[in-house]
C-alpha cells in the first residue's frame, strides 16, 4: 500500500461521496457547488492516471466554464425554480424513486460484473505493453507528445471538433438572442 494508492482511494471516496450528495440534495445551489468538488476530485484522479494535461484542461473548462454557465442558467431561471424544488418533499429513497434506484443499482451490478469478468488487467494488449515496459511512467513528460499527435495523427478529428464547436457557438447564440415578433 504505497502513498499513490492511498491518495487514489481518498480521491475516489471524495468523488463518489460528493456525486451522491449532488444526486440526493434538495437544494440546487448546494448540489451545484458539490458538483464543483466532484469535478476537482476527478481532476485528481486524472493526475493519478498520469494524464496531467487532461486534468488541467478539466479544471479550466469544466470548473471555469461549464460550472459558471450552469450557475448563470440557474440564476436566470428565477425564483420559480427554487419554489419547485421546495415542493418536492420526501426522502432520498421514496416509493416514486424506487424504480430509478433499482435500475441504477442493477446497472451498476451489471457494469461491475462486466469489468471483473473481462479481467481488464490481463487483457492481451495491456499485458504486451506492460511486458515491453512501454506504459506511461510518472516521470515521463507527455505534453509535447500530445501536441505532436494532435497536429499529425489526430488532425482530422481535431478539425472536425473545431467545426462542431463553431456550430455549437453559433447555435447557442442564435437560440439565446432576443426574439423580435413571432418565433
Amino acid at each position, binding site marked *: 500500500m504505497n502513498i499513490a494508492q492511498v491518495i*487514489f482511494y481518498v480521491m475516489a471516496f471524495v*468523488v*463518489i461521496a460528493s*456525486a451522491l450528495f*449532488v*444526486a440526493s440534495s434538495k437544494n*440546487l445551489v448546494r*448540489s451545484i457547488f458539490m*458538483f464543483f468538488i466532484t*469535478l476537482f476530485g*476527478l481532476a485528481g*484522479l*486524472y493526475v493519478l*492516471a*498520469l*494524464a496531467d*494535461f*487532461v486534468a488541467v484542461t*478539466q479544471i479550466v*473548462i469544466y470548473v471555469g466554464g*461549464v460550472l459558471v*454557465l*450552469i450557475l*448563470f*442558467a*440557474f440564476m*436566470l*431561471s*428565477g425564483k420559480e*425554480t427554487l419554489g*419547485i424544488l421546495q415542493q418536492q418533499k420526501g426522502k432520498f429513497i421514496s416509493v416514486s*424513486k424506487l424504480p*430509478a*434506484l433499482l*435500475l*441504477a*443499482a442493477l*446497472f*451498476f451490478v451489471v*457494469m*461491475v460484473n462486466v469489468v471483473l469478468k473481462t479481467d481488464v*488487467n490481463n487483457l492481451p494488449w495491456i499485458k504486451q*505493453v*506492460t511486458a515491453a515496459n*512501454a506504459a*506511461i511512467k510518472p516521470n515521463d513528460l507527455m505534453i509535447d*507528445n*500530445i501536441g505532436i*499527435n494532435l497536429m499529425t495523427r*489526430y488532425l482530422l*478529428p*481535431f478539425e472536425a*471538433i473545431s467545426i462542431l464547436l463553431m456550430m*455549437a*457557438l453559433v*447555435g*447557442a447564440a442564435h*437560440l*439565446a438572442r432576443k426574439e423580435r415578433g413571432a*418565433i
Partner: protein
Amino acid sequence: MITLTDFLIVSAALFCIGLYMIITKHNAIQILIGIELMLNAAILNLVAFGKFDKIANGGQVFALFAIVLAAATTAVALAIILNVYKKYRTIDPGKIDGLKD
C-alpha cells in the same frame, strides 16, 4: 500500484449516479448535471486506458475531445433551457407538454 479495475469501478459508480439523476430529477438543470456526470465517467475510462498508450496517446487526446464536446453540449442545452423558461415559466421537463400551436 493502482490497477485499471479500480478506475473502471469508480467510473461505473459515477455513471450510475448520473443515470439515477437523469431519471428522477424534476429540473432540467439537475438533469444536465446528471449528463455531465455520465460524460465524466466516460472520460475517466478513456484516461485510465490512455496510460497504456504512450506513443499514440489515443486515450488522452480523445478525453480532451470529449471535454470540448461536453462544453459545447452544455452551452447549447443551457440556451435551450433559458428559452423554455421564457416560454413556459418552468423548467420541469414533465410539465413542458405544448407544441408550437
